[in-house]
């Protein structure tokens, strides 16, 4: 067989009809006039486009068959190119078919000319490019999809990066809620987080117009959000119609918000769709304003977002838990410390509730069954309903079990915890929790711990109070004993407990008659505080009373106390100042065991410290315990002051200065009445706020012959003046009749000064001084007010008349005020 001659057509074994070839060629043929009018068309073209031959021949131009875009291209490119080049190749046109379809084609055309070069005919082949165009469009779509996917991936990467940096649930929520917009073109989104303690979904963040107009949703609801959270399945509601079938409420909301597609994505720690429902931590909802079908690829990315967000939430929850645990631990530790600072019960209870509000609760109350009325400390507000609270409190006291919930579940508005210590319910701690605190399992454990610590702290405070009360009672009973009284001396004592210190101190004093002529006075300070110190001082005091005798004397007393201390260890290094005074001779023997030196003010001259007769504190091992005593004679009118170091020592002052100030003040008050003198000294030296106990005993030997008083211009004060004056007169054994007379005259004179002298001056003062001699009593009443003639006032006139009647001599001196001097001769001298 020879090779076929390719220059010739092969003869096919069947009849190849050229016209059949033309009509049914695999491409369309068109022959047109130069203006495009179709003059010939093959069957293939007609089949493709659906036109009848008669519709086209002589009726239409080629360009009439093109889409409007194609017509423009025909005009601007195809026509001019054909005219220039006589041929155009592979021009893409969409041919409009008879039924309106577009047929994508590729068109080649040649222009035939006559001998003169005039355009004669255009021959056009039309290739069906449907497949090719589809392919091109696929390529384009694929590229767009790739771009969109890339963008989603970028958005997702950014979200993942943001999530990694978000340490709290709220920050995670805020990062996640931003994703659907850029990633999928969503119009708005909102995120709910599961609050398993409260069994609900709580809205944490949203962006754009609301997707679903819902706030917190209980998990048990049959709302779409709750269902998604329960099932853990991604749910796409593609249209309102779908929503109407599945979630009617959602459909309404979609109508209202203009959303046409809503995606509900569970946020899970595990990829969704597994055999076991994954742990759902929240739900992200986002919506589109159009009906939007999400591609598989997009859905994959959506699920990935849910998974990433779920993991981030899980992580954040762990962080949150760790932080919460840490802050709870810190709070508990700090609370214990703060309570320890305050030993007393009620202040401690107040401190407790003040720490709890507002950090833990908005309102807190401690109720304790202490004493007949109980004790309540509360803070914050408003308090819960009193009936409900009372019911709860009663139940908790009866059961000893915390009450944190009611029939409907957790009840953060009225939580009641028992305060127990040593297996006993002391009372309750009631709370109305802050809105952002939850009565979760963790919180319940925390509250339990808090109540436990509080119970112990309050029980300790209660025991402390009890002991303190016992010690105070003991001390008071020891100090309040009857002091001896005699016309030959006057005693005045003062005890002032420290304002800061809560336990009783060991300061004490005592005075007693050793025999009819011998007065013993003692003051001391036991080391330590509280019930031990109070007991020890009682023992020492009793020992001194038992040991005192005419033969013992002060030095002997201290020697015996040293022996006593060997047996009563708690009295070791206690200090004592002890003196015995002969009431007939005024001779005083004294000894100081490590105690502050007594201060003596004689009838004349400045006061002085008695620095002799000194030795070391009782039972001292390092000090000089050879006991010595010293003697001094007290002149009538002398005043002896025994005191404890609280009077002298002040942080802001050296002890030497303290001694100086005390001596000066004591001297200044030389003529002041003995009553109130120690208190006045304490006021001047220490003030109201002192850190140590102060104990003082002042002995006036051979009583004062002079009394002075200064009172305000207030009638009420006259009674007090009378009381002092009566006592002073009694001390000097002034007869009853004279006493009544002097009291009446003095009252009338003072009333006169107040009613007349100070009629216009309520702050004026009236000075009263009284002196007594064996023969007479003399009273002087002076004011600095205006004098008004008394005759104008019958009543006052009667007052003055009374004065003249009861007193033997009366003199008025009016110069810069009025001074009335009155004298009454005592009965003995009449």
């Amino acid at each position, binding site marked *: 067989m020879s090779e076929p001659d390719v220059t010739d057509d092969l003869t096919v074994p069947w009849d190849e009809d050229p016209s059949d070839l033309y009509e049914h060629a695999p491409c369309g043929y068109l022959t047109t006039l130069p203006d495009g009018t179709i003059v010939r068309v093959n069957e293939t073209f007609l089949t493709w486009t659906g036109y009848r031959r008669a519709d086209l021949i002589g009726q239409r131009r080629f360009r009439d068959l093109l889409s409007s875009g194609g017509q423009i291209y025909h005009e601007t490119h195809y026509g001019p190119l054909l005219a220039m080049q006589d041929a155009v190749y592979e021009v893409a046109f969409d041919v409009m078919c008879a039924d309106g379809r577009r047929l994508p084609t590729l068109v080649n055309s040649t222009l035939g000319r006559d001998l003169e070069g005039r355009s004669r005919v255009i021959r056009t082949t039309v290739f069906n490019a449907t497949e090719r165009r589809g392919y091109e469009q696929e390529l384009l779509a694929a590229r767009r999809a790739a771009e969109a996917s890339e963008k989603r991936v970028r958005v997702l990467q950014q979200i993942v990066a943001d999530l990694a940096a978000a340490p709290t649930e709220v920050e995670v929520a805020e990062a996640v809620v931003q994703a659907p917009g850029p990633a999928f073109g969503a119009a708005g989104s909102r995120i709910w987080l599961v609050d398993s303690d409260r069994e609900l979904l709580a809205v944490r963040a949203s962006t754009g117009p609301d997707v679903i107009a819902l706030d917190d949703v209980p998990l048990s609801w049959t709302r779409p959000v709750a269902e998604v959270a329960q099932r853990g399945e991604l749910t796409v509601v593609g249209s309102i119609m779908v929503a109407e079938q599945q979630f009617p409420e959602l459909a309404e909301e979609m109508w209202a918000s203009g959303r046409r597609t809503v995606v509900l994505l569970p946020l899970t720690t595990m990829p969704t769709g597994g055999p076991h429902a994954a742990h759902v931590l929240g739900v992200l909802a986002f919506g589109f304003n159009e009906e939007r079908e999400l591609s598989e690829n997009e859905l994959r990315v959506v699920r990935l977002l849910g998974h990433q967000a779920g993991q981030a939430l899980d992580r954040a929850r762990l962080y949150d838990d760790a932080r919460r645990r840490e802050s709870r631990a810190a709070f508990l530790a700090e609370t214990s410390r703060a309570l320890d600072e305050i030993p007393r019960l009620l202040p401690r209870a107040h401190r407790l509730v003040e720490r709890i509000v507002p950090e833990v609760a908005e309102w807190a109350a401690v109720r304790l069954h202490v004493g007949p009325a109980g004790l309540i400390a509360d803070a914050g507000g408003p308090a819960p309903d009193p009936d409900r609270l009372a019911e709860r409190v009663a139940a908790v006291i009866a059961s000893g079990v915390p009450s944190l919930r009611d029939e409907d579940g957790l009840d953060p508005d009225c939580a009641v915890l028992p305060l127990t210590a040593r297996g006993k319910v002391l009372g309750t701690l009631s709370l109305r929790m802050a809105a952002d605190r939850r009565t979760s399992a963790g919180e319940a454990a925390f509250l339990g711990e808090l109540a436990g610590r509080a119970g112990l702290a309050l029980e300790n405070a209660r025991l402390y109070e009890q002991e303190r009360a016992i010690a105070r009672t003991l001390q008071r009973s020891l100090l309040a004993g009857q002091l001896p009284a005699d016309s030959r001396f006057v005693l005045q004592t003062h005890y002032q407990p420290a304002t800061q210190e809560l336990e009783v101190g060991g300061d004490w004093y005592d005075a007693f008659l050793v025999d009819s002529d011998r007065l013993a006075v003692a003051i001391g300070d036991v080391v330590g505080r509280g019930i031990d110190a109070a007991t020890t001082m009682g023992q020492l005091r009793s020992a001194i009373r038992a040991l005192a005798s005419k033969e013992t004397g002060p030095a002997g007393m201290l020697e015996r106390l040293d022996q006593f201390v060997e047996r009563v260890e708690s009295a070791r290094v206690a200090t004592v100042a002890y003196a015995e005074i002969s009431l007939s001779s005024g001779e005083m023997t004294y000894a100081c065991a490590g105690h502050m030196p007594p201060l003596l003010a004689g009838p004349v001259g400045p006061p002085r410290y008695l620095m002799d007769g000194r030795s070391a504190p009782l039972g001292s091992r390092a000090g000089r315990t050879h006991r010595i005593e010293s003697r001094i004679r007290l002149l009538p009118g002398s005043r002896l002051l025994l005191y404890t170091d609280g009077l002298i020592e002040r942080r802001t002052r050296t002890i030497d200065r303290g001694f100086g100030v005390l001596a000066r003040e004591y001297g200044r008050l030389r003529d002041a009445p003995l009553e109130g003198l120690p208190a006045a000294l304490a006021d001047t030296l220490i003030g109201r706020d002192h850190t140590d106990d102060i104990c003082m005993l002042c002995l006036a030997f051979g009583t004062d012959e002079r009394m002075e008083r200064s009172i305000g211009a207030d009638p009420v004060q006259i009674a007090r003046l009378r009381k002092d004056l009566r006592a002073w007169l009694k001390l000097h054994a002034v007869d009853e009749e004279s006493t009544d007379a002097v009291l*009446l005259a003095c009252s009338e004179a003072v009333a006169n000064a107040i009613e007349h002298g100070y009629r216009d001056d309520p702050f004026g003062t009236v000075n009263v001084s009284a002196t007594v001699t064996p023969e007479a009593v003399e009273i002087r009443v002076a004011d600095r007010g205006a004098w008004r003639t008394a005759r104008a006032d019958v009543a006052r006139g009667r007052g003055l008349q009374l004065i003249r009647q009861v007193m033997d001599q009366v003199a008025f001196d009016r110069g810069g005020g009025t001074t009335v001097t009155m004298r009454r001769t005592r009965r003995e001298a009449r």
Partner: protein
Amino acid sequence: MSDQVGEEQVRFSKIGDAELVTLAGEIDLANAPAIGQQIVAHMTEAGAVLIDLTAVSFLDSAGVRLLDALVGDLDDHGTAIRLVVGESGPARMTLQLCAFREDLLATDLERAADDVNE
């Protein structure tokens, strides 16, 4: 101290038709007006009045003024009055010094009651 008058300082009771006012403690410028008000508030149409001053430990001119006014008022109404002051003591001293009529002063409560109830 205040000018409040305690129950223990002014008490009211009856002996027969007579209204008995028992005063106690100190009566002076500071509390006399309040005591006076209390007595006046209580004196409504009494047939006779006895004022027992035996427990009064002090009486000044303001107290005298009060009693003087009281006696004046009751005399105007024709109501019998006696001031019971005991044999001695601060009240008697002051009232005697002020020269109160002897017929007003009594030493014995029961006898004074018989006097005014006749």
